[in-house]
């Protein structure tokens, strides 16, 4: 049975509405600090059902500007912290008593403008997939994007090839060539659906949504119309917030982040160039030394003396360590993420602009 389960890969993630609300609440409360928590649920024939979640405890640090970064880092590293593993086990033990599906199926994190592809995320997910259970998932909730319109909640896993590479911990050029690992292959996104229970569906049908269908009496005057209890509340769905025209701040923010990533990329490239140069220098030195030794040996051979060993250079010279390419890979993945995000923004902003134009200039 266990073998059978292992063979079928995870195909989709199904998130219970309760979990969505819990993640949103925790993330928006903690914003702009990163919020992380644990997911519980079960795995049904390749579909991972996430049925409950709970936040990780936060370390109480006064949130002054200077400390915000460290608090954020602590929160981001929380899923793999030892104390939290204990907390998680205890919580799951308690949840089992009230019939919650008490299997750890992953963790969630909050982010801002898709800025989540970093070493922390990778390390957390690696920790989960390696230590806990292979079939775990990371849910990423984007607070900034959700505030602007539709909910942004995505599910990610590390690809098997990346798991192997990360386990070895070697991200040299040579290794990457051998494994053929590309930055697109680091994270695998899984399709995610939201699921409501019957009771919840029933509750949602009770909430006010649509305009009343039956004929209503006419209001006697304007004030009565504005106070009419039959006037429907703006419905939850569709969300008219997505008609908001101010999208530029988001575009600008993404551009800033994109530039930041490019700078990182540039720094990494410089590191590599530095490495290449020092490697070249060392190799030139080695070659010079080898030639000198050869010449010496030739002279000694002519003088009928025993030759000196020719592999002594391995002791004398030390080749520089190649810097890890992991940072470059992650950065590239992040840039790709931003670029796609910009594409998405552009699509909706140009639609809205054309709509506004044809509204203000009718007949064209």
């Amino acid at each position, binding site marked *: 049975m266990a073998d059978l389960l292992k063979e079928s890969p995870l195909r989709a993630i199904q998130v219970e509405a309760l979990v969505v609300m819990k993640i949103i609440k925790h993330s928006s409360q903690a914003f702009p600090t990163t919020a992380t928590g644990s997911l519980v649920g079960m795995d049904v024939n390749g579909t991972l059902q996430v049925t409950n979640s709970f936040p990780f405890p936060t370390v109480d640090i006064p949130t002054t500007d200077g400390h915000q970064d460290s608090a954020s880092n602590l929160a981001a590293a929380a899923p793999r912290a030892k104390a939290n593993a204990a907390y998680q086990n205890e919580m799951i033990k308690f949840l089992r008593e009230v019939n919650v599906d008490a299997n750890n199926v992953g963790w969630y994190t909050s982010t801002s403008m898709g800025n989540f592809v970093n070493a922390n995320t990778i390390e957390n997910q690696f920790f989960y997939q390696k230590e806990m259970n292979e079939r775990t998932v990371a849910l990423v909730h984007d607070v900034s994007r959700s505030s602007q319109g539709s909910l942004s909640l995505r599910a990610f896993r590390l690809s098997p090839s990346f798991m192997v590479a990360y386990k070895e911990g070697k991200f040299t050029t040579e290794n990457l060539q051998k494994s053929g690992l590309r930055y697109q292959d680091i994270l695998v996104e899984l399709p995610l659906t939201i699921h409501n229970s019957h009771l919840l569906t029933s509750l949602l049908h009770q909430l006010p949504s649509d305009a009343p269908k039956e004929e209503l009496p006419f209001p006697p005057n304007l004030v009565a119309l504005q106070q009419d209890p039959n006037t429907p509340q703006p419905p939850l769905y*569709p969300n008219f917030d997505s008609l908001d025209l101010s999208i530029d701040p988001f575009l600008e923010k993404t551009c800033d982040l994109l530039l930041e990533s490019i700078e990182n990329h540039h720094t990494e490239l410089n590191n590599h160039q530095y490495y290449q140069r020092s490697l070249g220098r060392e190799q030139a030195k080695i070659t010079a030394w080898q030639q000198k030794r050869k010449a010496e040996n030739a002279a000694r051979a002519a003088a009928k003396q025993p030759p000196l060993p020719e592999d002594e250079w391995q002791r004398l010279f030390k080749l520089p360590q190649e810097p890890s390419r992991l940072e470059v890979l992650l950065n590239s993945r992040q840039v790709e993420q931003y670029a796609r995000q910009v594409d998405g923004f552009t699509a909706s902003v140009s639609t809205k602009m054309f709509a506004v134009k044809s509204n203000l200039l009718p007949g064209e």
Partner: protein
Amino acid sequence: MSERDSFLHLARPLGPAPIGAQPSTAPLSVVIQPQAIFSILDHSLRRPQDQDRVIGTLLGSRSEDGTEIEIRNCYAVPHTETAEQVEVDMDYQKQMLALHLRANPREVLVGWYATSSELNTFSALIQNFYGQQGDGTWPHPAVHLTVSTVPGQEIEARTYISAPIGVTAERAADSCLFIPVPYEIKYGEAEKSGLELISSAKDREDRTQGIITDIESLERAVQHVLDMLERVSNYVNNVLDEEASPSSALGQFLMNALSLAPKVDPADIERDFNAHIQDVLVVSYLANTIRTQIDLSNRLATAALTLGTGDALTGTGEGGGREGGERQKGGERRGGKGRQQRTVEA
């Protein structure tokens, strides 16, 4: 739901309370966040088969004077109920509370919930437990939230606080007077997008909904607005054809709405529109160029080596790296320019 019920608090009920320990029973209002309700409903679905109702603890915040309570979170507490006695796992309640407070230090214990609207002796017993001194909510009253989950009937929520009442001293522990208090379900801005998605699944047979993209939600919103406009223009046409009865209030309202349209010179619109759309498209173009450059840079960094044999290793590798770097700089420069341009024109 009982949102439209009105509540009137006439007087404090008098009860034989211990001296100096009279808890406040001042009227208060309760705000419930949707995730607490969701959690209660989930718990109700997961109740043991032989149990009619399940209970749990409510967490939230209380305003300083104690007149406003916000229920933000809750967790289930196992309990067993028979005709003669009720047993609540106090130990579980205490430990779970400690665990929750570690994650949410700002939330406090505010009361408890049950998943049936029935109030009985056991309710009073549990209510007194939650409202007691020490571990309970004392000196504030404990809030009791009932959410009925009877199949085939509407889900009905009620909130109560209690006052001590007792016929005799022995029965003081298991009797109290439940006073209904008004409540509201409120959601914040951040939760709106989540609720939108959740409620979009309410009319679907399988009760599931995939994540929709921004452009899709835009399409749906536009469609909805168009439908509403259609409805209004239908009505106006009918009035003009003398088929529907006119209303001066509606007419005024529509006129007010129409007068909100800004008066702008067509040439200005044309110019602003073109400038803006160009900016947006340039940003998109640059973002995609950058993506391609990064891809190229990565490929060059790893693929250059396959061109030659081992001896050429250093030379080509370096060349690849440098080339990538230069291209990268180009992308950055252009990206920066694009941004400048945009901020100038925006």
